[in-house]
């Protein structure tokens, strides 16, 4: 029942996403679909690490799945990080540049 309660709590929080108008079933089901899509697809992408190390990939997928499920609902957090705020856009832009440079400079040996 823990997981069910977790999902139910997550669904109740979706209401806060839709400010300024009525919330319909289709909006909530769309957001719920987004929630599951996010969890499943990030775990699938993490499976790509098996091309580097199979054991590492298993551990990463397991930890990622636990982190994502425990932190439900994810969509309000993701949505607030992807709003039209210039500060956030610049922050993630610079962060991405740093990640790219790190991976290109030190990562080539592991691919």
């Amino acid at each position, binding site marked *: 029942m823990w997981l069910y309660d977790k999902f139910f709590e997550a669904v109740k929080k979706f209401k806060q*996403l839709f400010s300024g108008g009525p919330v319909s079933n289709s909006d909530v089901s769309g957001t719920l679909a987004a929630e599951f899509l996010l969890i499943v*697809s990030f775990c699938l992408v993490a499976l790509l690490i098996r091309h580097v190390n199979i054991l590492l990939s298993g551990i990463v997928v397991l930890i990622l799945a636990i982190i994502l499920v425990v932190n439900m609902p994810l969509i309000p957090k*993701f949505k607030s990080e992807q709003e039209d705020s210039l500060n956030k*856009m610049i922050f*993630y*832009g610079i962060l991405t540049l740093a990640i790219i440079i790190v991976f290109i400079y030190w990562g080539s040996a592991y691919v």
Partner: protein
Amino acid sequence: MSELWIPLMVVIPLICALFVSALSRFNKTIKVIALVVAIVIPIIPFLSNYGLHIFGGFLPMTDSITGMVYHPSIVYSFGVLQKIFIVILGILAFLVLLIYINKYKKASGPYIFLLFMGIAAVTALLLTDDIFNMFVFFEILALAQVGIVAASSLDNNYEMALKYMILGAIGSPMILLGVGFLLAITGSVNITDIVAAIRMGKVAITSPVFLMSCGLIFFGWLYASGLPPFHTIKSGMYSKAEPHASALLQAFTVISMVSIILIMFRIYSAVPIFEALLVVFSAIAMILGVTMALTQTDYRRMIGFLAVGELGFIGLGIGLGTQFAITAGLFQAVNEIIITASLFIGFGAIAYLSGETDTRKMGGLIGYYPKIAILVLISGLAMAGVPPLNGFQSKLMLVQASLSCGYPELSLLAIIVSIATFVVFVKAFYTMFLRPKPNTLKISNKKAPKSMVFAMVVFLIIIIVLGFFPGIVTTGISQFAGGLL
């Protein structure tokens, strides 16, 4: 038939842009010039031979000691891939201008100037074999996009355009710095010369300067193509432009993405992590684009996010790096230009007729606008990859390509994202067209503009034809991909 037509593909829209701007007081004249040039643009590629055009007549020079060939001037290269994209862009540009001219009695010269500058810039990006020339047109394109959004009549459009320009101030210098590093280590800005220098071992691919240039140009490419972390601003730009302009803006994005990534692929494919990064960023774009689209209530923003998510499919195909996968990725690019343009124009027609963009306040529109509903439905099904439409063919190719490359997880991801795209579309279609009309929604007596319906019918024909006969474009694209490898 001659190679002299090659530069005219860029020069004609550029000159038209200048003329239209200069003659902006003469309403009928600029409308006629714009339409005539829009008709000419997709015809020129059929008049031209495949080949190279060397500007200034400076022929390549051979170094007698090393045997290397140098290109001292800007070179444009025209092949089958360029032909396909320029023809598609030309058809789209004609339809967009037709809608614009039909919608506004008084045409704006500066606005048409921006549209043609954008068309010239993406055409040059496709043709150029010079990396500095690529940067120049990349900048022109970014400014044209900002201008097009700033010229729209929607709320907060200036703010979004300004944000895009500020982010461009981070992305563009990175590309320029990367180009500078390449020039420093190879002594050339000609892409063929740079590739030759790498293949002959004159540049070490493990050199920090070379790797840094790869990282910087890759970052600039993310900005140009609207992949994460620039997916939010890109979808915002689409939602703040006029619908016909959004259709053209997304085509600019797809073509600039394809042009720059093909240049990067030629130069950096030897860097082992390059293709891995490409696949990872494309996968993240697919996930974030569709996830965000599922949570939107403004359908313009919804389509904006879907368009960004679809870009991930293109990157995925090119990142897998086989001939079949690259063909699938480029075919997906062709399809996305057509399908997304059709959706932007279809939803734009609904916004024009109902004056509403919030899906929560809409409903019952199928009874009022059945033709538009059917056209939008087919375009949406094509985007979701429903057979026998063109989106199905390219997505099936991508799934097959990732399976044959040994990445079944990517095939699964592509299928899941396609299903989620279908969910987004069904949700939007139901809330706008099928559920009972809310009492608060006022329906005007206006009819859908004929030019918009005509444009959607043209796109629908292309969607169905490419769905049944994908070989029309995949044969040429496959030849190009084979040459690339």
